[in-house]
């Protein structure tokens, strides 16, 4: 797991979903021939319309889905490699937790499963709870939490084991303006600590503010990777480039 390897390397990644019903097999394309390199310390945004393959890509990186073709390497380790998983933190689009446990119990549980040493567990839990401003509510069962509070605990569990790579699926969806600002600041702070951040989003304005590079997915294909310097020098900014890429890829299908 050395620095010579990119943080994430996707090589000709293809995912085809097969669903069979009464003997009939239906296939749907998730992503196709997706190749991408995310370097250490980079903030990379994955943009795309609904059904473009953003969540599929993230699940393939995390090992929740298995590729039909191609490979995923994290720090040079072929996923789903346990050593690579210790270096990754994941925030799902809508984090779900065990209703009967309190936030502290949930974090201790995830800490144990992540292999966090017992002596650092307590201070680490308190530190992430403080970061997401949930210390005062951490004793309550999670069934009593609001959506915003669940999102905060979602972030806390993603950062708990101090991972090198943070993968967020639509982290700004449904956040109020204050929440958006906090999320932006958190991503920038994590990046300042040398962390690699990979996230998907619909929000071009937010992606534009924090990312070094952006990949645009259209119908499961990575159409273009754009760097910050490119969109900052373009009149229409990232939004203009995104619209150009999506429209030039042909009419959208309902997927």
């Amino acid at each position: 797991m050395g620095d010579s390897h990119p943080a994430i390397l996707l090589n000709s990644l293809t995912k085809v979903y097969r669903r069979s019903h009464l003997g009939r097999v239906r296939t749907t394309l998730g992503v196709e021939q997706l190749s991408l390199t995310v370097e250490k310390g980079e903030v990379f945004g994955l943009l795309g319309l609904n059904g473009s393959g953003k969540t599929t890509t993230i699940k393939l990186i995390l090992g929740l889905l298995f590729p039909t073709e191609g490979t995923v390497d994290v720090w040079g380790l072929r996923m789903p490699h346990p050593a690579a998983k210790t270096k990754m933190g994941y925030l799902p689009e809508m984090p779900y937790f065990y209703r009967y446990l309190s936030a502290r119990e949930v974090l201790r549980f995830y800490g144990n499963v992540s292999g966090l040493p017992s002596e650092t567990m307590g201070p680490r839990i308190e530190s992430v709870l403080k970061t997401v401003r949930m210390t005062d509510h951490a004793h309550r069962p999670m069934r009593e939490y609001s959506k915003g509070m669940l999102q905060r605990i979602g972030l806390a569990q993603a950062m708990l084991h101090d991972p090198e790579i943070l993968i967020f699926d639509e982290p700004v969806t449904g956040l109020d303006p204050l929440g958006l600002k906090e999320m932006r600041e958190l991503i920038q702070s994590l990046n300042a600590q040398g962390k690699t951040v990979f996230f998907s989003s619909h929000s071009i304005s937010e992606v534009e503010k924090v990312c070094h590079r952006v990949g645009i997915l259209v119908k499961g294909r990575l159409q273009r990777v754009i760097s910050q310097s490119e969109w900052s020098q373009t009149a229409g900014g990232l939004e203009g480039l995104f619209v150009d890429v999506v429209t030039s890829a042909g009419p959208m299908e309902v997927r």
Partner: protein
Amino acid sequence: MKSLLSIARYTFVQQFRNRLYLVVLFFGALLMGVSLLFGALAAEQEVRVIFDLGLLLTELFGIVAVLFGAVTLVLEEMESKTIYLLLTRPLPRGFYIVGRYLGLVVSVVISLLLMGVIHVTLLGIKGWSFDPHYLAALPFIYLKVCVVGALAVFFSLFSSSAVASVVFTLFFSLLGHFGSELTFLARKSESVLSVLLVKTIIVIMPNFQFLNYRDVWHIPGSPPLSLWVWGGAYAVLYAAACLSLSIALFSRKEF
């Protein structure tokens, strides 16, 4: 190993905080009280009726509790997506299945011990003089519960519906009580195909004949050593086979 024990521990905590589980436990205790009523109707056989009925209710409660526990724990976890945050950590999938199973079985066995205490108290009130057969009967009930729990975990992964999982497990558990009848049927049948079919069923179904202590406790010196050895070995091997199949299914499952 730490992560396996952690999964088992939190499954145990979850179970005891689950309202549905507490309701089942309450009804178990209530039914014990009802056995007093049946005992009163049996006049001079009162203690015998409370004794037999109590053991039957303990077994039924154990089977219902482990069945619903297994189905809701695994299926709910997949449906509620709490599993995402576990499987993106360095946790071998087999550990997840075994940890869940151990936590569940331990929580049910502790409930059965509580029911046993209530039962013995009721019997004591009615002037029952302690019978060591009682202590021998309980471990065989626990072994049955372990087998049914392992079956339920397998069916909850095999099927995507909670109802189907419950029905399949109940069907297997019921047939498991008719091992000698099925053997008789195979012996009497003249068709090679039906003999093969029945013999296959006999092998696949759990054979609770090995664990029916009630059938042999009138024999002096019971339980015979062979029942302990064969019963224990059979239950452990059958549960291990079910869990191995569950792990094989779960390892290939995508989320």
